[in-house]
Every structure is written in C-alpha cells, then in structure tokens.
C-alpha cells in the first residue's frame, strides 16, 4: 500500500498512472465508445480531421473511422504489451542468473545455451517467428516475448558478473554456502531492482515491436493496430499525413505513460528501501 502511496506522490508516477488508467478505460470500453467493427467502411473516404462531427479525426483511404481505429487499437496495444511482458520474465531472470553464476566453471554448452538467444537481434527473431507461424495475435505475443528476452537476460548477467565479484559473495563462499543459496539470497536481491525497472520498459518495447511488425504488414490482419494504421496512412503520406500522425501520437502517449509509471515505481521502491 505504501508503495502505491509513494508512487502517486511522485509527479511521474501520478501522470503515468492517470494516463494508463484512461487508456485502460478506453481499451476496456472500446465497444461502447465506438460500437461496431472499426474496420468497416463508415463514411466518405479521406474526410479531413475536425471537419465532420461524425468523424472527429477523419477517415482513411477506404472511409474507415480513424477515431474508432485509435480507440480499438488501444485494446490491441495494451493487451499485447502486457501479455508479452508477462510471457517469460521469471524464465529470463533464471537464465540470466544461471549464466552469470556458472560463467566460470560451467560447461561451455550450458553457457552457450544461455548466450545463444541474446545474440539474435530481437526484431529479426520476431520477424522470423512471425513469418513461420503466420500473423495472429498469440503468435505476435510469443514472437515479441522471444525477442524481448535478450535484453533483461544480458543485463541480469552483467549485473551478476559485477555483483558476484563483490566481497560479500566471496565471504558467503568462504562460510560454505551452497552456490544456489548464494545466487538466491545474496545475488538476487541486489540484482532485482534494475531488472524490475526494466520490465516496465519491456511492456513499452513490446508495444513498439508490435507496432513495427504491423507496420511491416506482419501483424494480425483481422485486428486494428496503431502500427497497421500508420502503414496504411503511409500510402497517402503526401496528401493526408494525419492518417499516420494520429495513431503515432497515440503510440507515443501510451509508451510515455508506461515509462513515467516505471520511473515513479522506481522512485517509490527506492524510497521504501531508504525507509527500511
């Protein structure tokens, strides 16, 4: 509870929390806010924004309502971001820890397995996976989770590499602590805070990756996403740049909100540590 109070006390946390709450509400009530299929043709094609009260943000090349697309796109983006970030964090942490701790004496194969995935560019991996399994929402989530895995595992390993050379780890070794116990009780607590702060960044990265995949035409074609809206608007970029600009702004606001929330959370957590 105190963490939540601390979180709302920081300006970053407050703004981030409010923005995320609004976005979540929009995503939850998207069917009520703009009923019907957002991909259906609703009016005249290429209506300019702020001219027709029926379509406040205008319509695209096929006459689809831009506002409806943005409202429904919030659903896809938030859901995908959360799902991808939840998909494998524990596993990641374990691999990072294992690779870091066993680094010296472990068999090359074991280290190799932990290091193979991080050498692959996350986006290429997502691209390859997506092209194999075909574009659908669960596939995109898995592809992003596979790709997003690399960063935290590598960062955890780097942190572990540094922490495990510290004196208290040597002391723990001297008093005969089991390596697993050292990893869990001595190293993990010192490695966790930066990794936690990073998981919010994974949500943001997942949202951005999904947008980039849809932008390249590898998203789920049956779902509206901001990335696919930007790609669609790109065809008429010279005459109607608003088609790409509005969903882009929605993306930026969402990602900023996630970052602010993570900053506030980081501050709230470090305050708690200071008080303890």
């Amino acid at each position, binding site marked *: 509870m105190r963490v939540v109070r601390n979180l709302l006390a920081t300006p970053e946390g407050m703004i981030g929390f409010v923005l995320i709450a609004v976005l979540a509400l929009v995503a939850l009530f998207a069917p009520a806010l703009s009923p019907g299929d957002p991909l259906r043709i609703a009016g005249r094609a290429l209506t300019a924004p702020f001219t027709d009260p029926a379509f406040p943000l205008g319509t695209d090349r096929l006459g689809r309502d831009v506002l409806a697309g943005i409202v429904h796109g919030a659903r896809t983006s938030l859901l995908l971001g959360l799902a991808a970030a939840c998909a494998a964090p524990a596993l990641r942490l374990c691999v990072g820890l294992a690779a870091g701790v066993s680094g*010296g004496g472990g068999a090359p194969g074991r280290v190799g397995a932990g290091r*193979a995935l991080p*050498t692959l560019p996350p986006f290429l991996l997502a691209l*390859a996976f997506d092209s*194999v399994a075909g574009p659908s929402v669960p596939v995109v989530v898995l592809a992003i989770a596979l790709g997003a895995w690399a*960063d935290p595992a590598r960062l955890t390993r780097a942190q572990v590499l*540094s922490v495990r*050379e510290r004196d208290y780890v040597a002391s723990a070794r001297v008093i005969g602590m089991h390596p697993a116990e050292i990893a869990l009780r001595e190293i993990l607590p010192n490695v966790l805070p930066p990794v936690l702060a990073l998981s919010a960044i994974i949500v*943001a990265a997942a949202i951005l990756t999904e947008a980039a995949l849809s932008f390249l035409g590898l998203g789920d074609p049956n779902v509206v996403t901001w990335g696919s809206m930007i790609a669609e608007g790109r065809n008429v970029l010279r005459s109607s740049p608003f088609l790409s600009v509005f969903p882009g702004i929605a993306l930026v606001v969402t990602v900023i909100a996630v970052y602010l929330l993570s900053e506030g959370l980081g501050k709230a957590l470090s305050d708690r540590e200071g008080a303890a």
Partner: protein
Amino acid sequence: MNRALRLLRRRAIGSIPVLLIVVVLTFLLLEAAAGDAVDAYLLSIGGGDAAIAQSLRAAYGLDQSMPARLWVYLSSLGRLDLGWSVAFDRPVRDLILERLPNTFLLMGSATALSFAVGSALGIVAGAKPGSARDRVLSTLSLMLYAIPGFWLGLVLSIVFAVQLRWLPTSGIETIASGRTGLSRAADIAAHLVLPVATLALVYMALFLRVMRAGMADVWRLDFVLFAQSKGLSRARIVLRHVARNALLPLVTMLGLQSAAMLGGSVVIESIFAIPGFGRLAQEAVSGRDTALLTGIIVTSAVLVILVNLVIDIVYAALDPRVGASERGA
C-alpha cells in the same frame, strides 16, 4: 592485459557452441514454416504444375529429408557457403556481403553520433541530479525514447523531404547519377542524413538515460564523498570519479544495443528504401526464402558475438573486478 587476453580466448571458444545452437535452432524454426521458396516463386510467376515444382525442388535440393539438408547446410557453412537464395537466384553470401556495407554505414554513424552526444548530455544531466537542467534533459529524453523509430522516420521525412524538400526521401544514392569520388560521397551523405538522424535520436535518448542513471547511483558512493572531502575540484570529481564509473552500464548497453540496432535497421531501411541488411531480411520473409533468412540470422549472430567480444574486453579494461576470479580455460 593478460587477464583481458584470457577472457577473450575463453569467450571466443565459448562462441562456437553458441553459433552452432543458433544455426540449428534457426534451421529448425524456419523448417516449421508452411510453404517454401518454390511455392512463393510459383505464386509470383502466376502458378505452375506439380512437375515444375518438383523439378525446381530437386534443383535446389529442397526435396531431401530435413536431417540431410541440415547436414548439407552445416558442412557448407564450414566452407563459409551460406547456400542459394531462390528468391534472388544468387548465392546468399554474395547478397549479404553486398548489403552489409550500407547497413554498417548507417548503424556506425548512428551509433557513434548517439553514443557521443548521448553520453555527453548524460554527464551534463548527471553532474547535478535533481537540478533544473537534469529535469529538462530527462523529460526530453523520455519523450524522445518513447517515439517509435519508424514513426519518427516518417514524420522527419514528411517535414524535411516532402514539405521542405531539403533532403531526398529515400534510397542510398541518386540512381544512375554517374557521380564519382567526393560528389558521390556527398550524395550518399545527403541520403543518409534522415535515417541516421532518426536512429541516432532514439538511441541518444537511451544512452543519455543510462548515463544519467549510472551517475546518479555513483554520487551516493563513499569514494565520491572522500573525493569531495579531499577538496578536489567539482569538474574533476564529475569527470574522473563519477562519469568514469558510470560508463560501465553504458558500455553494457552498447553491447546490448548492437543486436537491437541490427533489428531496428529492418524498419528504418524499409522506410527510407535503403538497400541494406535489414531490408534484405524483410525481402527474405516476403519471398519465403528460408536459406536467405537463415543466412541473415546467422550473420547477425556472428556480428553480435563479435561486437560483444569487443565490449567484454573494454568492460574488463574498465572494471578490474570482471574476470578477476577466472582461471584460464
């Protein structure tokens, strides 16, 4: 130096199984794809009968069993042969070697620019955590970092290439311009301004944030207090003591980013129509060209391993604790 060399040798030997795992995993993953390059090719020429498909598959060796093809692939990899691209009807290695320089140029300039400007601004912000200067820079970098690269690229090209017409919209150089020497270099540079600026802006924000966060952590350590009590000048403390120690996470981040930047090049190269490595990946996906995609993924793994070898050496040189407990392998 001895310590660094030992670390290098151990890492280099450790990379061989890593690469093998990457190759086998990629091969198996892409094996699961529905349809192959012959299907995509026949679709693109408007269809063909089963006999043509079969003879094409036999010609490209696609009719053999999966383990047999994996074995052929691995053994030809030993000769640095990455196989044959069906979509381009050319050797995969030639295609990749042809595209890599463009991507190196793009990534190298963007990384150098963003690292230099980002860490410098990070030092400015981190010199006095909590100051007005720090807050302005931190907020700006947060907003910048939240912008998706492909959207930033589109907006920049709307403003500077379409509206203002200052810079070319796409490509790596003017087609068939017949330029040579310096004038060609200037032409390529003009084409690279927007993509490099797009990538550099996003990564600059990242480096700034990591540098600032690292410095804020170091300020709390005892040796900084000690340096202050010794009466060292503020500039000396900021640069020699705080910034130097905060460089470590930044160097780690640079290694991490090498993989992410290679991936990011896919989208940026596709927006600015730069015939580079990333665009080749997208072309491989749309052409269902498994051999090409495998070659691209393996090549990028090699590149990332090489970058991280260098990063590990730099890291060991900067932080005496890393590798201190390692006995020679």
